[in-house]
């Protein structure tokens, strides 16, 4: 009796563990299967054409794919110095430990705020606040294609900023943990040979923690590419391609959030195709993150 309970529980636990693999596989299959129709019709040209016209039943996802990559990479470019800098600030003894702990806690709580609330804040507070600055940018640098349109409200630039807010906590928290894990001996040795604080940070601490930091950055990139609500609410959801960062744009996830509920026919299939591309993108980034962490781990 006891043996069979034991064996039964083992099998149950095994089955529950397999659920992960099954769900993951099911997601891949369902999304792929849903997009087969559109894949057959448009093939690779789906990736490079930018007309999305449900009325004429023509679909190309270039604007959304470009928007996904552009917004997440730009957000990363801003968030990495901010996040790693904050992590350095709260792992060094520049200010008292209590204040450092408080900063760490605040950044972590920022991660807990739902993205839809950040979207609401972006619409009513952040976007009106930054618009004058964007207008100045347009006036001065308007000759560049990236700032060639007048900021009208929702657009790529505010979307990038709200993405920065969303991925900053991930980068900060992971960088802080990796810096904290660097053995005390290394720091002491660096100070022992007479280097300055920043000599130690730049030449010893950061290289020793780089695997964790890069892993965190890649994780943040994956999150930024898949992030939906805040971006949907502020990017403007336009499928017309524009080089300008001040013009409305689109991302794959924003397009899905906006259109999937009301789509039918070949539009569903095209949206599934876009979803499949998004999945592959995030999958590649996450795998790369895991590989990099392994590859860059220093042995000390």
């Amino acid at each position, binding site marked *: 009796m006891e043996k069979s309970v034991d064996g039964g529980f083992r099998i149950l636990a095994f089955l529950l563990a397999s659920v992960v693999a099954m769900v993951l596989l099911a*997601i891949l299959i369902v999304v792929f299967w849903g997009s087969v129709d559109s894949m057959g019709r448009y093939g690779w040209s789906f990736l490079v054409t930018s007309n999305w016209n449900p009325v004429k039943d023509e679909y190309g996802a270039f604007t959304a794919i470009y928007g996904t990559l552009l917004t997440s990479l730009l957000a990363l470019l801003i968030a990495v110095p901010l996040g790693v800098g904050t992590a350095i600030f709260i792992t060094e003894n520049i200010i008292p430990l209590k204040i450092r702990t408080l900063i760490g806690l605040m950044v972590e709580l920022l991660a807990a705020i739902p993205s839809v609330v950040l979207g609401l804040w972006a619409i009513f507070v952040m976007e009106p606040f930054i618009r004058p600055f964007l207008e100045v940018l347009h006036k001065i640098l308007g000759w560049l294609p990236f700032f060639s349109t007048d900021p009208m409200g929702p657009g790529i630039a505010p979307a990038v900023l709200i993405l920065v807010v969303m991925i900053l906590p991930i980068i900060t928290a992971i960088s802080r943990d990796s810096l904290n894990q660097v053995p005390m001996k290394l720091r002491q040795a660096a100070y022992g040979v007479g280097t300055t604080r920043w000599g130690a940070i730049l030449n010893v601490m950061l290289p020793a923690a780089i695997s964790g930091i890069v892993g965190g950055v890649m994780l943040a990139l994956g999150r930024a590419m898949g992030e939906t609500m805040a971006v949907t609410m502020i990017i403007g959801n336009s499928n017309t391609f524009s080089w300008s960062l001040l013009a409305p744009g689109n991302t794959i996830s924003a397009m*899905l959030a906006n259109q999937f509920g009301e789509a039918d026919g070949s539009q569903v299939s095209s949206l599934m195709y876009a979803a499949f591309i998004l999945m592959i993108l995030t999958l590649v980034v996450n795998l790369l993150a895991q590989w990099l962490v392994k590859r860059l781990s220093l042995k000390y």
Partner: protein
Amino acid sequence: MAISPTASLRRDIPDLSYKQGLRRNLLNKILTFLVGLFSLIAVLPLVAVLAYVLIKGGSVLNLTLFTAASTGLEGGGIGNAVIGTIIVTFLSALIAIPVGVGGGIFLAEYSGGGVFANFIRFGTNVMAGVPSIIAGVFVYAVIVKTKIIFGNSYSAIAGGVALSILMLPTVIKTTDEGLKLVPDDLRRAALGVGASKFVTILRITLPSAFTPIATGVVLSIARAAGETAPLIFTALFSPFWPEGFDAFFNPIATLSVLIYNFATLPYESQNELAWAASFVLVLFILLINLFARWLRRFAST
């Protein structure tokens, strides 16, 4: 006259005092100032968002909001969305906790670190990276479109399933890691006095790992409660109160979807409801987070 030995020594000793103007000292100061500034910028959004949500949300909040449904008309409220968020989050926890804890138990206690366990751990990491909107698309295709749940399309159950897909990786990971922290001595002692593996896990290992697991589960519930993307085409929305058993099988309002729907509408009264809903949601999530932190500290002392 001979120079005293100390004086000659003194001449050879370099000046070791701190010099303000040295290039490396200046660089140090600049970089330190820079990271301090970065930290300030990093904290700013939290302060700004919290301030606006508390002030704007708090100013429109009153008791009648909780007793009215989200009709979106004058006199509408957010009461049904509060209930809806609780129902949908509860449903997702009902799925994700047993599956996740069971899976975690298998990884930590039974697998012995084999190929299959590593594959599942890898899968858990991959699943944690799946964008939340994809979970919504998946559940829409499998549950909503096929009307597999007794012929109902959009439903609270579909929303719960979509959220559980997002919760699952966190629950598995925290269970796996929590159980790994339990010292092997405890397991050996239990097995040594004749307990079966099942009894050992149920009575010894799982209770000793309770706090880390509970912390992870609580945090994942907080995250699920704020998710929107998986719900917009699974649980959809509803201007009515959830009623009895039918609530599980029909579209249901949630706070997060209410914020999304009402924020993008041009009417001020609805925007105000969105702020009020944000107030309730953020307060709820921050309280859970602080509770989880307290739980962790409580366990470590």
